């Protein structure tokens, strides 16, 4: 099969993972104006939890949903018990706090489960599909990745656009004081926002592990990719984050395919710097407000 088409298809699948992580960063940014640098470490932690559950129950799906649930709980706990106390302080403090959380998770997880590299099961085959003589670059797991992320993205869009809960969540992020006066329990909704974001991140962690393996800092590079994708989309736009993720996935796939896999992380850095210098408001947002 044409190499370019192969790179496009695998880039699309990788891009959906970056989109999921970018979306989780954007949800938190919109809710509390904090970039959660611990997002990748949280996802790594929930993936280890999933592995423990899968090994105990011998059922992938119980582990899968355990990871999502763990993400929801961990995210909400992080907001309620840590981030809430620094939200009103200087922005630098919140960033340093999430970095402390990253450092701690990356040290505590190997204490519990060991630091060695582990393989992680996939629900379907990760080998490329073949129909007769024709080999398609996509694996069933790639299709599963695309489907799972799309499902969560659509679910989140429905939640934020189509339900009363989503509306109050947006209101409490947009104008916390007024929402409070109208009887909205703002604190709870912010914690829920963090929980949903960590759930989305947990999904990304589950989708990364079968091909890139599981170890305590396996999400470091993915966090940079997710941040780059979120910035491509403007950091404030959920749609932009998803498109940004796909665009970045394709770009990195071409860079890796034609230039060598080691160039991917440096390529992401170049893209990130370029976009911040040339179009800091993101590719998909119109507006001139200074944010960067």
């Amino acid at each position, binding site marked *: 099969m044409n190499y370019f088409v192969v790179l496009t298809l695998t880039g699309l699948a990788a891009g959906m993972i970056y989109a999921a992580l970018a979306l989780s960063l954007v949800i938190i940014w919109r809710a509390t104006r904090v970039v959660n640098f611990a997002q990748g470490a949280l996802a790594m932690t929930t993936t280890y939890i999933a592995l423990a559950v899968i090994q105990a129950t011998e059922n992938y799906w119980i582990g899968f949903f355990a990871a999502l649930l763990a993400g929801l709980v961990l995210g909400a706990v992080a907001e309620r018990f840590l981030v809430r106390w620094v939200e009103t*302080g200087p922005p630098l403090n919140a960033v340093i*706090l999430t970095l*402390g959380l990253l450092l701690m998770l990356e*040290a505590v997880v190997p*204490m519990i489960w060991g630091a060695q590299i582990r393989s992680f099961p996939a629900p379907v085959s990760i080998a490329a599909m073949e129909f007769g003589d024709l080999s398609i670059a996509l694996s069933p797991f790639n299709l599963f990745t695309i489907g799972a992320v799309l499902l969560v993205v659509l679910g989140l869009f429905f939640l934020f656009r189509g339900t009363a809960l989503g509306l109050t969540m947006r209101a409490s992020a947009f104008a916390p004081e007024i929402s409070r006066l109208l009887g909205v329990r703002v604190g709870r909704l912010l914690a829920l926002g963090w929980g949903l974001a960590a759930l989305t991140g947990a999904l990304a962690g589950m989708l990364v592990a079968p091909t890139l393996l599981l170890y305590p800092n396996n999400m470091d590079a993915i966090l940079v990719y997710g941040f*780059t994708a979120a910035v491509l989309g403007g950091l404030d736009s959920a749609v932009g984050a998803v498109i940004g993720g796909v665009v970045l996935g394709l770009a990195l796939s071409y860079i890796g395919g034609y230039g060598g896999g080691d160039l991917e992380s*440096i390529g992401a850095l170049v893209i*990130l710097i370029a976009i911040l210098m040339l179009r800091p408001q993101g590719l998909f947002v119109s507006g001139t407000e200074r944010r960067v």
Partner: protein
Amino acid sequence: MTALKRAGIGIGIGGLAAVAIYGMDSIDPYRVYQLSTVFYIAIAAAGLTVLTGLNGQLSLGHGALMAIGAYTTALLLRRYTDLNPALVMAAAVVSTSLVSIVVGIAAARLRGPYLAGATLGLAVGLPGVAVRFSGVFGGDAGLSVPSIVPPDTFSTLPTEVWFAWIGLIPVVITYVLLANLVSTRYGRDFRAIREDEVAAELHGIRIARTQVTAFVLSGACAGLAGCLMAYTANLAAPAGFPLTLSLEVLAAIVIGGIGRLPGAVWGALIIVLAPDLMSSLNDSLHLPGGVRAQLPLALFGAVLIVAMLGFPHGIQGALDRLWRLRAMARRRSNEAAA
């Protein structure tokens, strides 16, 4: 405090440390190695103090900048084996400064989380370059760096002790220079921008230029630290510069107190000595090896969190407060006597 006084204090402290090192002849080599580690972490932390503490720019890429200093050292020494260490250090500072100019120009346009994210990308992405161009940088195995051999007059000294001697000089120079810089116009400009950018601009401070200056100054310190690190470890390899290195330097300045230069020394001491202090705790608790290895990092993470929640001014902040309380008490007793 005048600049002269400040320099005097710096040299005095340096002299005391020198005496301490001189007496270290008989002390075990591991302690000496630790001391050299404290030196280079202290230099990197001083640089980050200027950038993050005074200028308000948060960099997560200082580990990567240290890598540039270390690789400059390794590459230079591979070609010119007997090059004077002072020249090597100068070269590391220059090469890292050049890279810092590029990064700094990009950074000057970025604020808060955007800058942190971009420098995070640098920390995660740069080791990939060493692997990609393994012909030049030696790939995952890295490049070896020869030790500094003591001259004939000191040939009785073990190599590590001689190097600890040498390593003290750049520490004193860095701290004396930075301590003086903090109280000059540059230092005030840095702080003015951190406090209120618009007000600073209205006072005629050129924001972008000042921020790039702060970044380059800070990067130069990181490059010097990287050079010393390469000499200390006899190696420059990608595995030596993980993201956690940048976060450890950050933890050092947070522990010491953000924006307080003496605090950077406290922080460096704690970062380097904490694993040791904890190993005696480990021995009494009989913790398994895996837990033991990770305990320091978990502690640094916890310290970052707790410091942000309750003690944003760190150790030096607490000391400053004690000092003030003492001065107040003394004034009160003087008044009572009068």
